[in-house]
């Protein structure tokens, strides 16, 4: 499992717990704002990184070795 996947899983779990906690418990306003500001984008991004389509094994090499045209 690569580091991107591990980090995404950790962020997804933490943000889900934080958002659910704010839904269930009435924290101070500033805590809820902080969780919303960081938790919602983190939840969406980590979910996206985990669910996005991956290249087929036979195409994976091609993606990495795609010729760099240079700028």
């Amino acid at each position, binding site marked *: 499992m690569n580091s991107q996947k591990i980090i995404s899983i950790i962020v997804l779990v933490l943000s889900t717990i934080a*958002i659910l906690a*704010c*839904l269930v418990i*009435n924290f101070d*306003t500033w805590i*809820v*704002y902080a*969780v*919303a*500001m*960081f938790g*919602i*984008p*983190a939840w*969406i*991004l980590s979910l*996206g*990184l985990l*669910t*996005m*389509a*991956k*290249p087929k094994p036979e195409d994976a090499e091609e*993606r990495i070795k795609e010729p*760099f045209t240079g*700028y």
Partner: protein
Amino acid sequence: MNLMANILIQVIIAFLAGSLLLGLHRKIMARVQRRPGPPIIQHLLHSLKFFFKETGFPKTASKPFYIGITFILALIWIVGVIAGPVAHDSLLILFGVYAVYKIVEHNSGSSSGSPYGKLSCVRAVLSAATELPLFAAIIFVYLVTGTMNIGEIIAYQSVHGPLIFSIPLAALMFFMLIITKSPYSPFAITKDKVLISGFETEHYGLLRGFMHFSESIAWYVMLWVFLTIFFGPLTAVGYLVGMIVITFITGFINATTPIFSPNHSVMTQITVGAICFFGTILMIFTGVVA
């Protein structure tokens, strides 16, 4: 209602309404140009479709920065939702959101390493001229109402009537910002087609879908703020009608106006801003504004 539930509902409304309004905007542009155009729901479908697409990362990109900037883009517009529709907080926070948005445009362009992104990033600095009329408009709202708080501005208007009638030129300055931020705007020099998609060029797949999510929220928040601070207390139907009308107007303008060159864009914005600024000062000092 629980605060987090309120925020989540507002974010979802902002995303769905913003997506549909941007779809409507594209449809209007197409019809003005005698094209059938995509269905109104297309922008929403694109956002969802991109979200699950395969995403690669360019070799030239600074990866944490390249991904992180999309996170910051979403973060600032969620701050916009919180400061606006949720908390009715200070206009200065929203001005801060626009200021950071400019930084996002700049850094999104530079993080990919693409020349198109880099050129767009340079233009983002030039187009900071957009924020000057916005700041001036906020100052005038403060001078007339004596507050920066959106809730108090709404209360002021419920007593004295909508601000659009007392400081119309300040409203025009804010409207300039809306035109500038609308898709295919004549002032959208950071997304000029000669730069492909400007600072978004190298953000594709999931990251583009994520940026679409943020931009839909941005469009909703922008229209919400404009309607709230210039048209007073509105019902949900009032907001809906107002947002559709503004989307129609910007769609017509953008469909019939070619994009300006960067220097013309900046000079036009500054000129309109200056005329409205001095015009509003004149109105205040001659007693036209009560």
